[in-house]
């Protein structure tokens, strides 16, 4: 298991390098000029100097390793500096955003909590709803509950977040006036009232995201439970005289959860991607919204860094899922 993990970790390095190169070369084609917004009164030679300072116009075989160095060496060292108060990164160039002329990672760190709050809560809520639905649907296959559940998950599967988001805004915020339609990220929680306000503004984005995740997870949970319910060991357990509750909730559930856990792990990075649209609908200024504005403003270092972070998350969670599968299911041996 350990050797497998190490091998996979080592293998993911070239994959990630290649992905970052692909993203870099794609962005290299971009027509934008970071100096486009600089006033026309600035003389051309000054503009040229500013371009040079931002590292624009260098050939890719110089600029790309530079970005790699900044991302993998300077940024982590800067983080260590910030934590322990050391000064290793004195005078080192960090990855600079063309939009704001400030380090990309600083902006990412500012935006991360908003995304994590909304997406994280949605994910937890979705898991809490999806698992019981999946279990009960499978246990009572083709009952009215199962049929209704299948229909609801199909709907959740098919309705895109930009529509379900808009519908909940129209219903809950325009007609009923229960929740605010815009997520206020400057809001701080310091007492009960502000906590309630925070909860209120989180309800709708969480609802939209959770609907999507729940539909995928509960379908998966149901299929996995159905696979296990017909196994011989279930009949054995019943024949031994175990109660129905023990059979389903202990024997079947634990075996059915194995693939579901890995699906949950694989789904985490795609949630960040899906949150791009939800953040846009509810005006949450998180990572997804940052990416959209960066793309529109031709802020290449920002786009490159964010896209690469997404790629890292995907590769990392795929690895975690594979390892979890091996740990949870002793029949699976990778070596």
């Amino acid at each position: 298991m350990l050797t497998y993990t190490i091998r996979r970790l080592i293998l993911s390095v070239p994959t990630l390098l290649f992905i970052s190169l692909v993203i870099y070369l794609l962005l290299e084609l971009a027509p934008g000029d970071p100096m486009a917004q600089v006033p026309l009164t600035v003389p051309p030679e000054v503009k040229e100097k500013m371009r040079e300072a931002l590292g624009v116009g260098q050939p890719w075989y110089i600029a790309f390793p530079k970005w790699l160095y900044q991302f993998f060496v300077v940024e982590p060292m800067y983080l260590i500096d910030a934590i322990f108060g050391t000064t290793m990164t004195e005078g080192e160039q960090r990855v600079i955003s063309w939009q704001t002329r400030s380090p990309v990672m600083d902006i990412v760190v500012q935006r991360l909590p908003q995304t994590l709050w909304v997406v994280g809560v949605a994910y937890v809520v979705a898991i809490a709803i999806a698992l019981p639905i999946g279990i009960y649907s499978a246990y009572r296959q083709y009952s009215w509950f199962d049929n209704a559940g299948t229909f609801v998950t199909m709907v959740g599967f098919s309705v895109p977040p930009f529509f379900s988001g808009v519908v909940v805004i129209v219903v809950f915020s325009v007609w009923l006036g229960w929740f605010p339609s815009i997520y206020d990220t400057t809001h701080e929680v310091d007492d009960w009232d502000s906590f309630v306000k925070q909860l209120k503004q989180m309800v709708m984005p969480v609802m939209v995201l959770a609907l999507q995740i729940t539909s995928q997870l509960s379908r998966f949970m149901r299929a996995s439970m159905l696979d296990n319910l017909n196994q011989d060991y279930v009949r054995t357990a019943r024949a031994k005289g175990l109660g129905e509750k023990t059979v389903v909730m202990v024997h079947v559930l634990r075996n059915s959860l194995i693939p579901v856990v890995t699906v949950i792990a694989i789904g985490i990075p795609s949630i960040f991607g899906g949150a791009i649209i939800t953040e846009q609908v509810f005006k949450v200024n998180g990572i997804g919204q940052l990416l959209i504005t960066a793309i529109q403003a031709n802020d290449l270092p920002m786009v490159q860094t964010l896209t690469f972070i997404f790629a890292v998350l995907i590769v990392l969670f795929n690895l975690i899922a594979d390892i979890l599968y091996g740990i949870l299911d002793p029949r699976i041996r990778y070596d």
Partner: protein
Amino acid sequence: MTEPLSMDAVEPTAPPKSQWADVWAQFKAHRGAMIASALLAVIVAAVLIGPWLWGIDPTKLDIRAKDMRPIFTVLWDGDAKVGWNHPLGTDNLGRDLLARLLSGGQISLAVGMAAMVLSVVLGTLIGVLAGYFKFLDGILMRLTDLFLALPLLPLLLVAVLLFRDRLSATFGPEGGTFILIVTLVGVTSWMQTARIVRGDVLALKEREFILAARSIGTSPAKMITRHLLPNVMSPIMVSATLGIATAIITESALSFLGFGFPPDFPTWGKLLFDSVDRMELYPERVIWPGLMISLTVLSVNYVGDGLRDALDPRIRGR
């Protein structure tokens, strides 16, 4: 594929059924899939024939008739500005919403179909090549893994921004965007098909009929087209159906984020995006296109579900 054995002793009670008759019988038993196919047929027919029957030009401006509400608004609001000449209302420039929905649907469905065809062709090609030729397997599957690890939505957005102007200059704003979106969606959604097809081809290769075909000297090209492809048709059909749903959703997501078709060129996603700013006053302008997207995708998904059951011989006939 399988010829019924001739046995003189046994009188056949019924004429032999073809495989597709069995598939159809199983598909009919799936109620959701039947309702969904009917709904899908209605949507497709409406979108194809509708513009001829409903003769209003979707791009025609009529400022005097702007901001009309749907006809049923009268039920709860007697003063609403409604009229039978615009049953679903008009937008802020007086363009008829029904006509825009119908012509937008044509583009959305066309994008969905074209992207699905591209993705299925790519996926099948890569899957068959990887499954049949051992020396291609490693590299093609690494490529598939790589594509699966790419953060697709951000890259799609970037790619639209990069190539939109260039393609628009060559093929015109509509044609260029159409080609761009179809290509992008197709190129980023073939991976599942490729994996499934490869797995099936690997399993088929071990079967006796393939050995028999090889022993009489069938060339690899004939092998693939005559023996392998017909046998992997069912997973391909299922992923083709589901591929339409993905393509429609992706196109409308791109349009919704403002990276889709040019402004006065309605698709369902574009209509939704344009109406979001004023949805508090005119919620119907958001609801209708969104409902069309959702209904289409929902019925396509149900049809795919039914097809998967119908094409699976282990489920069929139970």
